[in-house]
């Protein structure tokens, strides 16, 4: 039996090593992808070979340089107006990423605060906040966006306000449920026995324990926000047309999917990459913040 144990230990050790490597890779890849995208967004004027809005009708619908018939001048090809897709993606990252991060930050903060207050206090305050949330959930964001676009004029600020004004409701719903559950848990009763104030209980005991669902929702929202931005821009509430954003680019290429798929594909691919990277990163952050999972 002794020799059997030795073999297994060696095997297990090897497996563990592989596993550790793999899990490190699962962190490094998304971090690198997000870092590259964010950096290229920041340094867009230095990186982009062309202006994102410069129209060159003579060079329209050129395939990417690595495909047959592609011109070496345009790495990812050109769109229907002859604009360089690669440059537009780099500039588009600015709008798409900053929009989704800003909106997630605002809605996540507001939704978490309202959710915790609603779930912890319960009673009338809870009913009031939740009815308010129901209303927010039922109004289409597009309607608000269009109204705001009329009132404020279409701009980046308009779509941020339009998405934030209702977007907190999803967070509030989930966080409120968690807070209600936590309110009944023994350690919260213990905190009251000790003499903790409500404020302290909400910050020290409820908030750290709702981080898991919060991270999950927030990471899932990244992709959704990019798409919402595209929709709003398409409807004319967001960034006016010549300026690139990923969602708007996917939209632009719709009519050319059969002949010039690269117009829609590459920005769509970037959206997918960001969403996937955020999901993995979110999982990792969640595990890091949870002491029960930290050692695994």
């Amino acid at each position, binding site marked *: 039996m002794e020799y059997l144990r030795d073999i297994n230990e060696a095997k297990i050790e090897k497996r563990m090593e592989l596993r550790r490597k793999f899990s490190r890779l699962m962190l490094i890849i998304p971090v690198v992808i997000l870092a590259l995208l964010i950096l290229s967004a920041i340094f867009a004027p230095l990186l982009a070979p062309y202006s994102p809005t410069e129209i060159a009708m003579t060079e329209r619908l050129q395939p990417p340089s690595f495909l047959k018939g592609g011109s070496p001048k345009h790495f990812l090809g050109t769109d229907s107006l002859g604009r360089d897709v690669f440059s537009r993606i780099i500039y588009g990252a600015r709008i798409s990423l900053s929009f989704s991060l800003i909106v997630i930050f605002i809605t996540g903060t507001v939704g978490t605060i309202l959710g915790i207050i609603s779930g912890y206090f319960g009673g009338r305050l809870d009913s009031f906040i939740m009815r308010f949330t129901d209303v927010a959930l039922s109004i289409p964001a597009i309607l608000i966006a269009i109204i705001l676009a009329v009132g404020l004029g279409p701009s980046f600020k308009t779509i941020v306000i339009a998405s934030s004004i209702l977007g907190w409701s999803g967070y509030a719903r989930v966080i409120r449920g968690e807070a209600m559950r936590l309110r009944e848990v023994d350690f919260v009763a*213990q905190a009251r026995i000790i*003499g*903790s104030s409500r404020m302290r209980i909400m910050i020290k005991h409820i908030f750290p324990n709702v981080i898991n669902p919060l991270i999950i929702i927030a990471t899932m929202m990244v992709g959704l926000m990019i798409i919402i931005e595209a929709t709003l821009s398409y409807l004319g509430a967001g960034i006016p047309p010549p300026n690139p954003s990923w969602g708007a680019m996917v939209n632009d290429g719709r009519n050319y999917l059969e002949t010039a798929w690269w117009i829609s594909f590459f920005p769509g691919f970037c959206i997918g990459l960001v969403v996937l990277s955020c999901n993995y990163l979110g999982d990792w952050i969640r595990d890091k913040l949870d002491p029960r999972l930290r050692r695994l």
Partner: protein
Amino acid sequence: MADILLEGRNLTMLYPVRRGLFQGLIGMVRAVDNVSFSIERGKTLSLVGESGAGKTTTAKSVLLLERATSGSVYFEGKDIYQYNKDQLKREYRPRVQAVQQNPWSSMNPRMRVKDIVAEPLVVNAKQSKKENYDRVVELLDQVGLKAEHAEHFPHEFSGGQRQRIAVARALALNPSLVVLDEPVSALDVSIRAQIMNLLKDLQEAHNLSYLVIAHNLATVRYMSHGVAIMYLGQIVEYGDTEDLFENPLHPYTNALISASDLKLPEDRDQNEKEIILSGEMPSPLNPPTGCRFHTRCPEARPECSKIEPEMVTVGKHQVKCHKFV
């Protein structure tokens, strides 16, 4: 006159029950009904009964997690239900602490042991971090844990160790009274004795009073000086531990002792039969008239279902049964 630390006087707790579309009031649950008890300084009182008997609710009214509908709690002779928020925080809360039943849920999983044990200090006593930490180490030592345990998270400990941490936290503020809600029932049998001994040692060292909530009679007999047997929100028998166990009067107490493992089968008298109660405890929403125990009482008489018995003093303890009126 005994040195009474805490006294519950005529505590009653009612919970409204609402049903249906319009949330109409369909009745009141009498979770605790006119319960009075007192705890002497440095002594232990146990509340014993089946689940649903109102033990925990009584403890909640003492810990002010919920306020009694009527009646009051007197601490060192003062009615704490008259205290304002500020007085409670200064004069009452820090002096009455608790250890809960389930050591797996009584600690925030995201806090380290040092923060868990230090929390009462952070909330109540304004001291430096260093002072708090020194106190934590001292407390961990008192409950038989090591200083290095302070850096760990609760999930890294066994149930027994967690309960020690919970005891350390309860002692942080040097309380006068500790409410122990089933302090050992969630633990392995093998470590129950350790925790009970620890609690007894700490009681002697700090002159602590305990209010123990339990259903295990062996635990109760070992730990307490006084016992109150509860049934359906009322105290049915109340007295000194030894006296009550040696000479149980109420039929319910007899049934509990008979069903417990305090007596081994070979110790029983030949003619002594095991008393097994039939049925479930009736709903507290609609308690039986007269004596609440009459529906299950082996010795019930006609008057039991009509007239509620008064609490009477028999010998050294009090009992609520028509047999002794």
